[in-house]
């Protein structure tokens, strides 16, 4: 008998509802739920514990019921772990055993793996038939000799069982309240140790026993009692059923009879081994290995609960699904056929996966491949029958060669333009220098000379500028063609795409068919196929994300804000992981590929070309302006025959003047941005490269110059992806109630992938936080020292509480906690001055920390938990029942979590605030926060929402339109940490939303700070008040 299996299956019940024994292919009853299960076992020295979640599905066909257990380990997970508590991550390596048992109501026998059924049929069944409570309320008391319980090797008294079952109605439903008790009895273990053993157990099921809402069993034994070395042993287990949101199916808080029943099985203490911590002697160690008590506990539980309930209190069994035992009908044949079909589709997916990876690999490697290598790759593709793909690869290579010359041509055109324009530029510079030296006469002369030169050379300049523009267009065009070719290669590859989509769809269909069958093993096959599908799609989709160069490109592109491609990448990576797997992932493959070409060919060349072309165009307009002015002068001089020209020119000038101011602002801003971008790019790519200077006064053309035509996702495509994601979510939410297991699998994998990505992001953030915290600690320490110097009475106020926040753990009993905990509160001293320390202390202890310092030291976890919706939900949920059993079941655990959330809230709202979005922490003297918010750039209608908070209270909130002149805001605050939150409500007409904040009375930090936000983004400024 395997203890693990037996204890695992004490979870469900079967009904007594009889029905005909004729072959019934559709279940007459079906229940599915998730059971949270915990178990602790102690031999008096060492504590063993486990906690797991198990999916339970039960179906009844006439006289037979099948109950299946899945330990939700990723193989057939119907609920994402993160849905439960948020901190439990998926472990794909863990593949535990799943169980399925069949129970025959007619002969009251179980079928399935012998690990349990043999024991039930041999030992429990006869007792159940003799003493069983039957369908109605009942109670019984009977004794069973150890030999009749199948416990060879144990010698001692007979065990007495007191069992009972009754029914209670709660909120319109009837529940069966079942309990058993085994008063203390004595036996000698297999190794001759005397044990006094006693036990209690209780369970609440629905009237028919289909769902086990709660179950708690506790066995205890005094080993060697009355002798030297006596110790307590125990084995306790508990479970409760939850819905899809992790909430208990039955709320015991409102069901007093149920709560009392479960509480009754948990009275007393177990004498946990932490009361007896010491290394066992050799003899004791040998005794530890004696499993007599645990075996007895298992047997007693099976008898107690089964007899009390009148059913196995374990699933009905069929070994068919898990070990190929007795099947008995055609379902297994059909299941096998479907499994074979799915296996074939899986092979196709494997092929498609390889092709997709191969093609994606080529695209990434292409820049470094020689023509021979490209040809070799094409030949390989052809040999695989992928002729279209081979041709597309060659096409890309050919375009790549063309593209190679394009940036150079652009450079040449620019150089030619610059060379031509050099005379003008130099003359203008001389004119500026002359003006700066106060020689305006010379300056004017040089200006005239310069403009005269430009007028004479207007045609040549125009031609050169046009060449720059053309070269730029060529770069863009080549880039675009390359993108198209890459799309053709991967996105349109039928081998990579169609096969995946088709095979994936077939797997899905097949899996649904299997879901309708009762053969659980085949269900697993289906799930495995789905997992492979996920691998096929997900892996190839994520490869670009793992590529370091790609990641750099992506980051760089986002940083530059050059286009939406970077965001497209992130967006699609996430969409692919959270929405429709097939299309989402394929999109993810496409976009990185084309973005790579974008970045190769468009970034430097296109940006520079765009700027140069714009600059040249602006030049031309200025030249024309000058020409018009000259003509205008002539006309004014009396050339009446040019009246028509005059009117035309005047109109033109009017238009020009109207646009001038706006163009000038735009030009200044754009030129700054572009110059900065180019400067950074040059710094990175050219060691010691010189940044080229441009004239400030240049006007740029109309701001609505069309940008490069990237074939990014259209709105329709985005909407389609979003729709699919919503459909997937809806399907997932629906499957629980309908019990359709396979329907949720795909959504499950999507979420897991999303979780993985989130985890990586979190790890990154944590690393950043670690650095910031180290810096802050240093700062805090310095601040504390300064503070001590300023406040000699500090010691009197706090004594050594701050610097030596020691604790008394164990109440002087000598059972102190060993290990090291934080005892230094000085990093938090300033903050603590503004806090209710008693409350903090109490919260820290209630949250499970030995002292306040260690709680604050763990502030990251606390604030994270407080911000985790699932954890909050769990914390404020009911405990399953009172008592100390288990790690999650007791009210105390929920109280602990509640304290952690409350403490986390407090920390989130006060000290543990980080300045963000470019703002940096500062400190002010006094308690009046005096600030001025102003738009330091173009007054373009930026609107922000300002919220000032302290200690969880909102002190000030206002919506403000930013002006150049600035708006002053004063807020009275308390000593301690305050936070200024700024939310951008728009970006004005010149994106982004920018502002400058001036803070008065700053004693530490920058008194003038700036931020830059997109619509909807937030900036946080942490202010230490009263330092």
């Amino acid at each position: 008998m395997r203890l693990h299996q037996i204890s695992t299956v004490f979870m469900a019940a079967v009904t007594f509802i009889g029905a005909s024994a004729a072959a019934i292919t559709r279940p007459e009853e079906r229940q599915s739920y998730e059971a949270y299960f915990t178990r602790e076992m102690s031999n008096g020295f060492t504590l063993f514990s486990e906690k797991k979640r198990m999916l339970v599905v039960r179906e009844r066909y006439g006289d037979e019921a099948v109950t299946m257990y899945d330990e939700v380990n990723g193989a057939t997970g119907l609920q994402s772990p993160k849905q439960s508590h948020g901190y439990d991550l998926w472990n794909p390596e863990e593949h535990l055993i799943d169980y399925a048992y069949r129970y025959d109501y007619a002969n009251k026998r179980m079928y399935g793996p012998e690990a349990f059924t043999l024991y039930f049929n041999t030992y429990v069944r006869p007792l159940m038939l003799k003493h069983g409570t039957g369908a109605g309320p009942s109670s019984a008391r009977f004794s069973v000799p150890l030999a009749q319980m199948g416990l060879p090797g144990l010698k001692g008294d007979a065990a007495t069982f007191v069992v009972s079952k009754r029914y209670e109605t709660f909120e319109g439903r009837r529940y069966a309240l079942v309990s058993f008790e085994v008063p203390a009895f004595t036996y000698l273990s297999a190794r001759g140790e005397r044990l006094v053993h006693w036990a209690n157990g209780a369970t609440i099921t629905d009237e028919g026993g289909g769902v086990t809402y709660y179950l708690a069993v506790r066995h205890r034994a005094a080993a060697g009692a009355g002798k030297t070395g006596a110790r307590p042993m125990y084995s306790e287990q508990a479970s409760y059923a939850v819905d899809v949101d992790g909430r208990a199916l039955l709320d015991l808080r409102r069901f007093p009879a149920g709560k009392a029943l479960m509480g009754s099985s948990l009275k007393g203490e177990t004498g946990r081994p932490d009361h007896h911590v010491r290394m066992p002697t050799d003899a004791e160690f040998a005794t530890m290995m004696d499993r007599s008590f645990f075996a007895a506990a298992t047997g007693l539980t099976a008898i107690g609960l089964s007899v009390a309930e009148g059913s196995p209190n374990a699933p009905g069994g069929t070994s068919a699904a898990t070990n190929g035992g007795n099947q008995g009908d055609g379902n297994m044949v059909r299941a096998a056929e479907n499994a074979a079909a799915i296996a074939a589709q899986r092979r196709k997916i494997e092929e498609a996966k390889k092709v997709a990876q191969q093609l994606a690999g080529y695209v990434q490697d292409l820049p470094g491949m020689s023509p021979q290598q490209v040809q070799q790759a094409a030949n390989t593709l052809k040999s695989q029958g992928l002729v279209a793909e081979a041709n597309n690869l060659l096409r890309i290579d050919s375009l790549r060669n063309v593209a190679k010359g394009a940036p150079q041509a652009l450079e040449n055109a620019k150089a030619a333009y610059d060379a031509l324009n050099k005379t003008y530029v130099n003359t203008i510079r001389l004119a500026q220098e002359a003006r700066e030296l106060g020689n305006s006469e010379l300056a004017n002369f040089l200006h005239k000379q310069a403009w005269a030169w430009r007028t004479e050379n207007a045609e040549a300049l125009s031609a050169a500028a046009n060449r720059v523009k053309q070269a730029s267009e060529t770069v863009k065009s080549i880039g675009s063609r390359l993108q198209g070719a890459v799309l053709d290669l991967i996105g349109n590859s039928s081998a990579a795409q169609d096969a995946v989509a088709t095979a994936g769809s077939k797997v899905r269909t097949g899996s649904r068919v299997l879901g309708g069958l009762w053969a659980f093993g085949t269900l697993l096959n289906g799930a495995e196929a789905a997992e492979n599908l996920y691998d096929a799609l997900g892996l190839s989709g994520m490869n670009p994300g793992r590529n370091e160069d790609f990641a750099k490109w992506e980051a760089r592109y986002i940083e530059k804000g050059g286009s939406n491609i970077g965001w497209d990448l992130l967006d699609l990576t996430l969409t692919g992981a959270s929405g429709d797997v097939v299309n989402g992932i394929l999109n993810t493959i496409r976009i990185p590929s084309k973005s790579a070409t974008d970045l190769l060919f468009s970034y430097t060349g296109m940006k520079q070309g765009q700027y140069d072309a714009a600059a040249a165009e602006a030049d031309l307009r200025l030249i024309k302006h000058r020409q018009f002015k000259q003509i205008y002068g002539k006309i004014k001089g009396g050339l009446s025959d040019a009246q028509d020209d005059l009117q035309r020119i005047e109109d033109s000038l009017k238009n020009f003047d109207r646009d001038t101011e706006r163009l000038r602002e735009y030009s200044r801003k754009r030129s700054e941005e572009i110059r900065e971008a180019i400067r950074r790019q040059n710094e990175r790519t050219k060691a010691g490269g010189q940044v080229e200077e441009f004239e400030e006064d240049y006007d740029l053309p109309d701001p609505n110059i069309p940008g490069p035509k990237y074939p990014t996702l259209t709105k329709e495509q985005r909407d389609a992806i979003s729709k699919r994601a919503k459909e997937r979510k809806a399907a997932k939410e629906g499957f629980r109630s309908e019990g359709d297991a396979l329907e949720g699998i795909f959504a499950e994998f999507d979420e897991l992938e999303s979780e993985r990505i989130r985890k990586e992001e979190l790890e990154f953030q944590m690393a950043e936080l670690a650095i910031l915290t180290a810096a802050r600690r240093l700062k805090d320490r310095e601040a504390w020292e300064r503070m001590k110097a300023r406040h000699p009475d500090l010691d009197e106020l706090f004594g050594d509480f701050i610097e030596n926040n020691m604790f008394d753990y164990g109440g002087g009993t000598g059972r102190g906690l060993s290990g090291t905990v934080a005892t230094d509160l000085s990093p938090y001293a300033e903050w603590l001055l503004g806090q209710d320390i008693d409350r903090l202390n109490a919260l820290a202890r209630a949250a499970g920390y030995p002292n306040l310092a260690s709680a604050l030291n763990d502030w990251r976890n606390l604030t994270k938990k407080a911000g985790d919706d699932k954890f909050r939900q769990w914390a404020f949920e009911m405990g399953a029942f009172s008592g100390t059993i288990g790690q999650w079941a007791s009210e105390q655990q929920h109280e602990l979590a509640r304290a952690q959330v409350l403490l986390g809230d407090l920390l989130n709202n006060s000290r543990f605030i980080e300045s963000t979005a470019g703002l940096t922490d500062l400190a002010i003297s006094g308690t009046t926060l005096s600030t001025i918010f102003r738009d330091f750039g173009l007054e373009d209608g930026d609107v922000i929402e300002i919220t000032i908070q302290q200690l969880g209270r909102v002190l000030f909130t206002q919506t403000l339109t930013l002006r150049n002149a600035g708006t002053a805001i004063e807020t009275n605050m308390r000593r301690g940490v305050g936070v200024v939150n700024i939310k951008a409500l728009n970006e004005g007409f010149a994106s982004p939303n920018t502002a400058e904040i001036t803070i008065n009375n700053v004693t530490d930090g920058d008194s003038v700070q700036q931020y830059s936000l997109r619509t909807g983004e937030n900036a946080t400024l942490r202010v230490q008040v009263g330092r």
Partner: protein
Amino acid sequence: MRLSAAVFSFAATLLLFLSGPSRALAASTYALDGSGHPGPGALRPGERFVQLPSGSGVETLSIAGRTVELNGASALIGSSSDAVFIAVASGEARTGGLGAGPGEALMFQPYGQEPSVVDFDAERMAAMFGPRPPNVLQPFVSALMSVADDQSLGIFLGMYQRSLFDLQTPGGSRVEGGRASVMGAPEVARIRYSGASNPDQIEEMVVARAAAALSYRDANTLAQLLDPTPFGGDDLNGGGQEARLVVARQLIADFSGVASGDVRRGAGEGVWRAGSVTMRTRPFSDFIFISSVE
């Protein structure tokens, strides 16, 4: 406020000893929790009774080896595993030089500690009796409400602050229920409230009592003095108590014939001899128990 009777089902008798004019006492006490009149002085842990003034005389009680005078007092007398208290609603309770008036309680703790006077929350105590207390208790509840009125002003002025501490269930009902199952056992209570404060003396009392129980085949007494650790430690409810009794019976079966009531210290700390039996002791919480009989 009512503690489950089951919590104390294994804690036996006599935590508090009352003496004095039994006539007056019987006529002037009212037991709560349906446990009946406390009889000539027996009070289990968690049980309470109201002492009402009878006539004009001074009544006396004996608590934890001390004489208490009740001078026209109406009071709630109760116990927990770690204290016995007399909460006065009217009149006065006095022991030695210590007196408790309305709103005050005399508190007695084990091991011969000096009694003390503490304030109690009269309003909360009055609430314990519900909106319609029995007629016989009306004067007592009225007196409590009068005290509560006075205290409310004190609370308003900040002189008093309400606390969660409950004289009857210090540490909460769950903790008290568990502790009573160990420390509220009659034999343990008898020794703890005997007035003895010397640890050696207490240890000897425990060993002597256990040895006598072993000799005289008194399983109940022996069980109460056995180390609770293997049976659940802090809380023996839920079957631990019976398991301890099973072990006591086994020990009696094994050793009663060779044990003697005369005890003497053996070699080593906590080692005692009782006839040819070796007994060992082990501290648990603030008491000391028998850990082995061999």
